[in-house]
């Protein structure tokens, strides 16, 4: 499904060389995979490369066997729009849109008709337990509800791959665990692949695959 081939992306951070160096790994289709490791281990960098938000210095990213990291800006945009979903640590919902409108946003950008977009967004929000919060703005939702809305937004367009960067980091334990349960359920139910960057043991405990990173290198791969 998702493959990194000898991937290197280096940058300067506080005067030191950071990033990922020569990472190769394969994330199978339909699994909940976790990139685990301490801060600065390269989790977010790998996630950004997988999400085509950044380009590697060396190596390649393959999605369904197709090399995608060297595509043009326009092609990468289009690929993100149609096949990738993102969940961020800080939720990053558009504050001026309601939960429903936030979930409809990627569908609108894809050109899905209004009625169809509304139906799919309502279904996605219902699935994450926010059927009674459709018209609430992000500021009117709790952190857990915002992250659920963000998951609904990522899933509504039926992506091949959902990338989540520390999705539970802004939530307390009582909300983080159920959120990960929900992501695991959705991965199994929809056959979508989830790649999550996290150092939260509660997240790692729910994963099918764990890729452990340290200092920008893959040091261990576990199949659970």
């Amino acid at each position, binding site marked *: 499904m998702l493959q990194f081939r000898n991937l290197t992306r280096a940058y300067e951070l506080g005067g030191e060389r950071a990033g990922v160096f020569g990472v190769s790994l394969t994330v199978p289709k339909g699994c909940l995979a976790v990139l685990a490791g301490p801060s600065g281990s390269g989790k977010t960098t790998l996630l950004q490369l997988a999400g085509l938000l950044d380009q590697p210095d060396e190596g390649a990213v393959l999605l369904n066997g197709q090399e995608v990291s060297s595509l043009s800006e326009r092609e990468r945009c289009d690929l*993100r*729009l149609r096949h990738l979903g*993102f969940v961020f640590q800080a939720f990053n919902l*558009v*504050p*001026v*849109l309601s939960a429903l409108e936030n979930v409809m*946003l990627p569908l*609108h950008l894809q050109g899905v008709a209004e009625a169809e977009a509304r139906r799919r967004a309502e279904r996605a929000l219902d699935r994450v337990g926010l059927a009674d919060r459709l018209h609430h703005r992000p500021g009117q939702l709790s952190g857990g509800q915002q992250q659920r809305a963000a998951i609904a937004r990522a899933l509504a367009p039926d992506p091949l791959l959902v990338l989540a960067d520390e999705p539970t980091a802004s939530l307390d334990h009582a909300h983080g665990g159920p959120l990960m349960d929900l992501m695991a359920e959705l991965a199994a139910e929809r056959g979508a692949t989830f790649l999550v960057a996290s150092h939260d043991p509660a997240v790692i405990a729910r994963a099918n695959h764990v890729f452990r990173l340290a200092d920008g290198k893959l040091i261990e791969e576990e199949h659970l």
Partner: protein
Amino acid sequence: MILPRLALRNLLRQRRRTALTLMVVVAGFLALALAGGFMAQTFQGLSDSAIRGGLGHLQVMPPGALEGDEAQSLEKALPDGEALAARLRRDPAVAEVLPRTQFMGLLSSGAKSVAFLGTAVDPVLEPKHMACLDALKNGAKAPGGAGSRWLSADPSAREVILGAGLARSLGASVGSLLTLMSTTRDGALNAVDVEVVGLQDLGLRELNDRLLTVSLATAGQLVDAGSARSRLSVVLKRPQDTAAELARIQALLPETSVKPWFELASFYRQVKLLYYAIFGFMGLVLFLVVLLATANTLLMSVMERVREFGVLRAMGLQPGQLVALLQWEGAFLGLFGSLLGLAATLVLRAGLNALHIQMPAPPGTSHGYELDIHFVPMVYAIVALGLQATLQLSALFPGLKAARLRIVEALRHV
């Protein structure tokens, strides 16, 4: 239609800032639209005074009448002007033809003589189409002007109406007896005794100091004009057709030169150019103020939404769509600003006009006028379009800045 919706919501998110930006646009609209209305009043007043001051819509004259030193003599005249006038009166587009004879000479009170420029007019037709009675009414207020009346229709009456300044320089008043001296077409000196029946204020000091008006019969006797006329002032039934009728009538009368009023009214043209220069510069400054103010607002808005733009780009929004988003924001600011500006302009215009403000006499003229800012839809449309273009331009730089953001950096932005 998600981009317009997003743009509108973003503007509503920062209500105070949006309100301030709208106020800048409204102020720009207000200033430019009111200035445009004031200009329209001025141009209308000047064109009316030029047309009704004797030019008519078209002037028929002999070729070359405006060249050389002979412009005021009958050496360059329409040889059978009266016949030409009669022919033109039969034209369906023509409302009236006013023959005029122009001459110059000396006006003497016995003790003192002053050079004059004389215009001879038809005393019956002239008041029907020209503003001569208004000039007479204004002249009646001048010293010695009391009891002013228009020229008698009696062809045997020898009467004159003097410019107020000309009367002053001779110490003449209504009822004074003066002598007009000029040369005939043959070059002989001739004189006619005339009675001052009125004073006229033509609005321009230079004219008031030199101009006098007599009947065609009086001038005929003085300069032996016969049926020759210096010019024919043509009043059209449809003034808006002046340009078209000019070409047609010129084709009908190839032996003459036909000129539209706006080519002959040099004061009108000079004022128009001056106003265009003044208000053009003012408009440019206002557009620059609006441009900088709105660009600053939109740029601030972009800087506050860096992370949001990063998220939108991560979701697959193309850089060009971010530019479009900012363009929509500029478009809404322009649209709402112009609508509010239109409302404010209409209210302020009505208020100012209701105050009946007396404006001072413009340079070179002898009396002021009442402020009456015109409603000119074309000016409002041009101002609205200009402001809209300015807003789109001001949104371009912030839009390009947003489009150039690196997604990973934008997502990290705090």
